[in-house]
């Protein structure tokens, strides 16, 4: 187990990078605590897998250093870094039984047979694989194979970090739930440093203590799931996290008024410190758009109601602006002329994409 530091890391797949755009990963500094659970979240091509491969040693960064517990291991190959990795598609050794698969990393490290047996049996029990131990690994289902991949990391006593590269891609939704909670449980039990790469916000938010949201080779926000949700520092994070994502509407500010499509809405806590030229946007999550009968609520029209089962999504139009709102499953039908209000605590103003701090 180890603390991981990334110092001025950047990476380019181009031989002689000269412009910023040549870098798949732009300069980045990061410090990850021993025993923490971290997620790298972003759309494809955002650099998250590049970063993971730099940590595992499969890639050598163009610039910068990777430190495990203070030791510079940038030049060490993966096998000398004491990491374990679970890949997108399950990797098992086809010819071996489940037991042999789990024992493989220990055998390679010349661990005595008795200890191997002990450790494998313990890990198999935790992963609920005990009954499958004598079976051939390739005959198992995808989720069991992913557990074996993880198990090969867990059996080792020398593991500094376990890395996950979109491990639930090929798993059915129902099984995802059980695998996810099992993984979380294992983390609580073993306290390995875990780094989880995904494009799926639910996986990232439920797994990690800290989520690193990336876009175009840069870290946009690194914070707790709750903060990502309640205070996205950039409109990208607002849109990317949440389903549906945050409503982002062009706006203007006039003193203590928010102006949306020529409609003046009184707002507390508005800090009009943005430069004159900045492009201003108003952001509010669909969960914080409430229906209201009050006189100052905004009249909207309903373009569609989508039923997701345990909740509904109301697609609304305020003049030309599309606004999504979340309704509980058993919400009463909307009136013919619905009106909405925004929860002031969870309303944000963005200048050129970045969150403006609220004045207290």
């Amino acid at each position: 187990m180890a603390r991981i530091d990334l110092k001025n890391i950047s990476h380019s797949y181009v031989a002689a990078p000269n412009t910023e755009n040549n870098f798949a990963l732009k300069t980045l500094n990061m410090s990850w605590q021993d025993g923490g659970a971290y997620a790298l979240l972003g759309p494809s091509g955002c650099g998250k897998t590049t970063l993971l491969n730099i940590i595992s040693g499969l890639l050598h960064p163009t610039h910068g250093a990777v430190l495990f517990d203070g030791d510079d291991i940038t030049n060490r190959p993966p096998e000398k870094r004491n990491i374990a990795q679970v890949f997108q598609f399950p990797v098992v050794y086809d010819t071996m039984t489940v037991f042999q698969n789990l024992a493989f990393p220990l055998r390679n490290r010349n661990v005595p047979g008795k200890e191997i047996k002990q450790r494998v049996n313990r890990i198999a029990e935790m992963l609920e694989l005990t009954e499958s131990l004598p079976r051939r690994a390739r005959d198992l289902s995808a989720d069991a194979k992913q557990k074996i991949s993880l198990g090969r990391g867990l059996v080792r006593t020398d593991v500094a970090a376990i890395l996950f590269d979109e491990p639930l891609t090929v798993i059915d939704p129902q099984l995802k739930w059980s695998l996810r909670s099992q993984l979380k449980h294992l983390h609580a039990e073993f306290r390995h440093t875990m780094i989880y790469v995904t494009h799926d916000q639910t996986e990232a938010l439920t797994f990690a203590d800290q989520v690193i949201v990336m876009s175009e080779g840069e870290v946009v926000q690194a914070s707790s799931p709750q903060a990502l949700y309640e205070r996205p520092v950039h409109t990208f994070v607002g849109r990317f996290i949440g389903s549906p994502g945050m409503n982002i509407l062009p706006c203007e500010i006039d003193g203590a008024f928010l102006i949306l499509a020529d409609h003046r809405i009184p707002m507390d806590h508005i800090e009009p410190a943005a430069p004159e030229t900045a492009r201003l946007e108003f952001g509010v999550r669909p969960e914080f758009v409430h229906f209201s009968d009050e006189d100052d609520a905004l009249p909207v029209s309903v373009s569609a109601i989508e039923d997701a089962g345990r909740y509904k999504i109301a697609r609304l139009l305020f003049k030309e602006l599309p606004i999504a709102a979340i309704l509980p499953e058993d919400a009463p039908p909307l009136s013919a002329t619905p009106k909405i209000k925004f929860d002031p605590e969870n309303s944000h103003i963005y200048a050129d994409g970045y969150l403006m701090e609220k004045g207290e």
Partner: protein
Amino acid sequence: MLELRSVSKRERGVVYIDDLSLCLARGDLHVLLGPTLSGKTSLMRLMAGLDLPDSGTLHMDGEDVTGLSVRRRDCAVVYQQFVNYPSLSVYENIASPLRVRGARNAEIDQEVEQAAELLGLRPYLSRRPADLSGGQQQRVALARALVKKASLVLLDEPLANLDYKLREELRAELPKIFKGSDAVVVYTTSAPEEAMLIGDTVTCLHEGQVTNSGKPRALYNRPAKLITAQILSDPPLNVLRVRKNGADLEFADNERVSGGERIASLADGAYKIGLRAHHLDVRKPGEGGIQAEVKITEVTGSETIVHAELGSVRWTALLHGVTPMDAGTRVSLIPDPAKLFVFDMDGALVSAPTE
């Protein structure tokens, strides 16, 4: 209308489709929902005419098409993998079914423009598929299926290989794309939320059989079988064996909760109950309900998922807001009796919550 009558498909002793009957109307988007190996893909292959059923028949608008070759089926397919002609431009990719049909250039122009407009592909018409993102490539495949104007459109998990956000975006557009096409549109998925959101009808599949089929909301509110309720629930449904005695429901560990009037009116005996995660409340210990121990909590930002255990029974609760709890915390689980589904021991619905 596409009709499957008692269709079965076996291969090397494995049953993929087991005596399945189904009616799919034109003009609707039909979702086939089920986990891996439930028979979704096998069923699509039968519909497309890629496989012949071992028994049973398929009828399109009343006409028997069982042995009709795939070329004559008038059907378009979009796959999970992005399948396009790599050497053709986006325009030619979309136009390809029209060229096969021998349409005039003017007509092709018009159709391709229209489809490209609908799918937001206008700026990319002259590019090659390889230069597009995954989401755009899948849009090209969808556009091609659209211009073909086939009477049967099969979409086999078309969003499964896309990033989460792109999936959300395209999912919202899909029902609009095929609206008014008058085709039988079939869409397979393993995600319950997707089925609920886009389906005009949802058919739940399990081990090669239809468990239930109907309008999504109706299925969600009154699943006739336990397995249907399980397939449609995300997070997974809490399922428990109980002994019903008067208005009380007794669990294996001598815990009991009151089921209210609706439950009291049922005959006493053994049942299975189903409760969705967001209808289970978690409170401090001693506030009644079922005493359990928290195993793990997951925070999604706006919601908290609590996994708690009592004996060997695992409960999942979904709470609004962020309320993380340490593993080992003792809690009271309070099921909402009004929201309980009651099934008999064979899994047939006995009582559903009133709407």
